[in-house]
């Protein structure tokens, strides 16, 4: 009887309300953290991939000791247009979150001994030095596993730990990884007929604006680390992990390699249309552009119906999307579609799609219509504000700051941002006594020597 009553109550509450009550980021601080038993040493250097990797673990509650040389990591001054906020570069600021920032000079033997002491307390070590450097310093995987056999030793580099290019002197940067992935070459505007690069310097292979290759490399490594932790729970063994940033980003690619393997065709730039999907494009409108999507025939038909071309374009007779996917057909249909979308504003097209889902001939099927927003518009969008992604973080050192957060929403162990960043060596006085039992005099001595 009691159980039946509970069940009917659960039924009354809508799914969305039920979830929100349990995973709204605003209540995250009241819940436990998934990784609060894990300690991570992040030695990454000049690498957003490394910083993001340890941030992702820190968001889930891992205790991350971010270890920098005494002068600080170069990444701190990789910031748009050279802009600093309270002395900090903006990229580093957003991915310093929840970490304890300590310093240690690994170029000195004393510093390396201290690192070894920390390693005995650690589950994971993240590093981004060129392959071989850690080994030369006596703190490579094979040396550290003697101290701590359960250690998960995670290396993120441009070319990986083995293979002919692994000994390259070239450092790892996001734009290089994007170039090596094969994705940049296929992205960008198509050269208008009869024009040249001099006239149209924008009709070239175009990379993504964000540090996406570095982000993907960091995220893959974080996933690998958690899989290795699972493996360790079963076997008790640690291991070494190897991610190369260009490979990580390339792995997100889809059909391109197989298409080339099978046909010898090299995917060329196709602007805002899509080689592998129809209906799937950015379309110009009265006041900007919208994304149009409909990967099933019915969704494409619904779009045609929505703009009043059902009869004229003969939509009722279509039986498959396949003919529309050919290159020439895509170009032909794009110009017809754009002629229609230019008659409306972004908002009008979005509303038309929502209404079509209710009343259209093919309802509830409706095309995907989404306005192409500037990041300023995105940041003001009430939907995202409501969902808590831009809740300002009240940081004791950097003040009120907006950094995207809460991308995972979870009912039991939600991620959270406790603080955004800390200056170089800010947590030395807390972490060294906590882990190594140092007294104030020892801290002072090592600081004077420049080891920390």
């Amino acid at each position, binding site marked *: 009887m009691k159980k039946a009553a509970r069940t009917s109550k659960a039924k009354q509450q809508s*799914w969305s309300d039920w979830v929100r009550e349990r995973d709204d980021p605003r209540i995250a601080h009241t819940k436990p953290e998934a990784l609060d038993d*894990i300690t991570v040493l992040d030695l990454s250097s000049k690498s957003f991939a490394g910083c993001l990797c340890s941030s992702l673990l820190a968001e889930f509650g891992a205790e991350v000791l971010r270890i920098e040389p005494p002068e600080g990591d170069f990444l701190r001054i990789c910031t*748009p247009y050279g802009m600093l906020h309270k002395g900090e570069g903006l990229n580093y*600021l957003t991915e310093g979150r929840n970490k304890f920032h300590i310093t240690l000079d690994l170029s000195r033997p004393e510093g390396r001994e201290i690192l070894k002491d920390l390693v005995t307390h650690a589950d994971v070590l993240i590093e981004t030095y060129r392959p071989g450097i850690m080994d030369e310093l006596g703190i490579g995987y094979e040396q550290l596993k003697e101290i701590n056999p359960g250690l998960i*030793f995670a290396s993120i580099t441009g070319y990986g730990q083995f*293979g*002919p290019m*692994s000994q390259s002197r070239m*450092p790892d*940067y996001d*734009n*290089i990884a994007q170039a090596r992935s094969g*994705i940049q070459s*296929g*992205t960008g*505007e198509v050269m208008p007929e009869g024009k040249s690069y001099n006239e149209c310097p*924008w009709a*070239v292979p175009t990379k993504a*604006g964000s*540090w*996406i290759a570095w*982000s993907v490399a960091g995220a893959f490594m974080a996933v*690998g680390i958690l*899989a*290795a932790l699972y*493996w360790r729970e079963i076997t008790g063994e640690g291991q070494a*992990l190897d*991610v190369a940033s260009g490979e*990580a980003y390339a792995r*997100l*690619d*889809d*059909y391109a*390699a*197989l298409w*080339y*393997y*099978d046909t010898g065709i*090299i995917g060329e730039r196709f602007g805002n249309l899509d080689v592998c999907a129809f209906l*799937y494009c*950015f379309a110009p409108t009265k006041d900007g552009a919208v*994304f149009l999507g409909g990967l*099933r025939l019915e*969704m494409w038909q619904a779009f045609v119906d929505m703009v009043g071309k059902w009869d004229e374009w003969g939509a009722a007779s279509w039986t498959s999307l396949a*003919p529309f*996917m050919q290159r020439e057909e895509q170009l032909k249909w794009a110009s017809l579609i754009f002629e229609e979308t230019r008659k409306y504003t972004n908002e009008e097209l979005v509303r038309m799609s929502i209404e079509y*889902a209710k009343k259209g001939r093919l309802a509830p099927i409706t095309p*995907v219509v*989404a306005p192409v*927003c500037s*990041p300023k518009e995105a*940041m003001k969008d*009430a939907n995202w504000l409501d*969902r808590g992604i831009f809740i300002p973080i009240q940081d004791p050192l950097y003040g009120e700051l907006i950094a*995207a957060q809460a*991308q*995972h*929403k*979870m009912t039991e*162990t939600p991620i959270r941002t406790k603080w955004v960043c800390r200056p170089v060596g800010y947590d030395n006085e807390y972490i060294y006594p906590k882990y190594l039992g140092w007294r104030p005099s020892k801290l002072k001595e090592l600081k004077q020597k420049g080891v920390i």
Partner: protein
Amino acid sequence: MAKETWKNYRENKSFKPPPLKGIRVLEVCTILLGPAGPAFLGAMGAEVIKCEIPPRGDTVRQMVPFGHFFRDQAPAAVHINTNKYWLGLDLHKPEAQKIFCELAAKSDIVEDNMRPGTMERWNVGYRQLKEINPGIIYISKNGFGQWGQYAEENRPSNDGAAQALSGYAWMSSFPGRPPLKSRLYVCDTYGALMGELAVLAALHYRGKTGKGQFIELSQTENIMRTMSWIWPYQQITGKVARPTGNRDVSICPADTFRCTDDTFVAIAAPAPEEFKGLCTAMGKLELAEDPRFKDHLTRLEGKNATAILKIIAAWVRTKKPEEVEQLAEHYGFAASHVYSSKDVVEDAHFRERGFMTNIDDPVLGPYDEYEFPVMMSKSPPKVKWSVRAVGFDNEYIMKHFLDKSEGEIKELYQCGALGKWADVQGCRPPSHWDGKAGIIKARD
């Protein structure tokens, strides 16, 4: 580098167990955002059962570059369906829902990317499954999440919508040009990857407490997270962040340049020794001491960055990409020609590492594929097989996972709960299939 650790990694992979052996995943996903996540777990050794509505199955089966099928399969479907078992299960049917619940009782993870509430209407939503299996970890991925205005309006979404709404596309074009969609379904596959991060964190938590949970991921929110500086920049300056083409505004110099043969090379040289190396390579060592360029923060400022990039562009115009790469190697800065898909497939380094590899799939035959990009010294992930026809593994799953008899299986087919492929490209086996190859008889 750890020479011993990585010795013969590629050759020895097959003899080592993958890290997620023993984890079972149920997938009710379509297109890319959904299926790519379980594929990552599959590559790491999890047992993934992909449920599709027969006879046509997943929409991705019709995603074909300019209409080209590969041995009757959609190339897009091949790449994101690693190591899965294929179940044709019509979840509209009560008998199929019951089967799903039986499978869920024996699984660790359930993944869907339906619109909010769909699974619950099919009686297999999280609230229903957790009654059967309280330890279940359930992730739902889509464009807008499970609640909020857009979710309530029941808007459909996909990768392009997320690229558009987040500002990601807007930031990825040249100044003064229209926003540009990436060729990559980046919000889908990166969303899928980040989803698995939460799943594995939840698995760790379950190991400690026995508790499962529900996870939601909006691919639009997820891609916003990678747009790091843009948000505090807009907050602090009150300005909108602007696109800058191939120039990286946080690293200088970092850009893509046109070579003498009209191909392209990316260069990065921000750290002091790297920048000095580049200046030396250009025969302009004095630039390294130029007050406009000497330190990184000054060099990043608008006018200075434009000036140094112009100098580099003029120099690269006289070089071939391989010359620039050789100089980069010699002087210790970073450079790479812009790889085409051919370059990626044929790259000797990728091959040697086993990142680009030839898969010998028992049904599809041999094909080139990217390996899972986290190399793990003791428990290497490995791509073994890919897409199968709709319902290809029905019998295996019914018999070995659920102990169903021949008679019970027959009934499930009769009522339409189970089904197999439609005889159309993308859904059926390759034409060369002999009716036997790839059918699983026993588990390893």
